[in-house]
């Protein structure tokens, strides 16, 4: 859910770039002696579409934040779960270490040269 909203905001950033790109292309096309009408129409519709999409998306995000935000800091944490998991990984690592030592001891005893 959080990633969806952040991803949509990143899309909005790209749309803002497209808005400026389209505005520049329209003015560039108008500066020529012979205009390409279809290109102008396409660029203009893309420009207006992007501007309205940017506005509606950002308005929606601000409206959602108005409903959801409390002004208080969030006090949740994953620390306890991370600590438990870290201790479990330490247990596994310790067991692996001890089994390695046991294996070395067995190899040393079974080695015919010693």
């Amino acid at each position: 859910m959080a990633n969806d909203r952040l991803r949509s905001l990143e899309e909005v950033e790209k749309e803002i770039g497209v808005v400026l790109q389209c505005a520049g292309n329209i003015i560039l096309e108008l500066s020529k002696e012979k205009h390409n009408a279809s290109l102008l129409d396409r660029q203009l519709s893309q420009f207006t579409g992007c501007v309205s999409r940017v506005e509606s998306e950002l308005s929606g995000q601000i409206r959602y934040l108005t409903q959801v935000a409390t002004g208080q800091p969030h006090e949740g944490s994953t620390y306890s779960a991370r600590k438990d998991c870290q201790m479990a990984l330490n247990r596994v690592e310790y067991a692996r270490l001890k089994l390695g030592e046991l294996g070395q001891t067995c190899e040393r005893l079974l080695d015919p040269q010693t």
Partner: protein
Amino acid sequence: MSSQRVLPQSKETLLQSYNKRLKDDIRSILDNFTEIIKTAKVEDETQVSRATQAEQEHYEMHVRAANIVRAGESLMKLVSDLKQFLILNDFPSVNEAINHRNQQLHALQEECDKKLTNLRDEIAIDLYELEEEYYSSSTSLWDSSDMPLCEAFQRQDSLVSPEGISGSMGTARVGDSSGVGSQGSTPERLNGHGAGTSEHA
């Protein structure tokens, strides 16, 4: 109490400022773009000379284009501020992210513990067989007071079943004179695994 009143106000004020910035920037882009298109129209009648008029329109277009770029930049800053506000204040998604991460970590921890438990069970089985082999061989150097794991399991099984009580006399190890007679009174040392003291030297 007054500080609690201040916080929601600042949040409201902040979100209203975001709205205002959004409206102003979109308005700026549309107005300046419209004015550039209007200025591009060639007019026959001018109040000043054509060169002056052209120079003036040229400068005006530059300024309006710069205004469009500035409004775009301001919109990008607004999006960045909204992202930051979302990460810090969107509690439903923060809670979901925390729960998801906790579940992942719990699952990993349980998997580690489960594998360690399986490993322990497998090693216990191998240890049982090895001890049985070792303590039953004539070349072993075990102490009579030691109780190997296999013997301890046999004793435990015999104590559980009623017909095993008399059978436990027969399964008592030769030389383990201290084990059967005094098993109720003195604790046996499990071949180095237990912490109890041995009174049978």
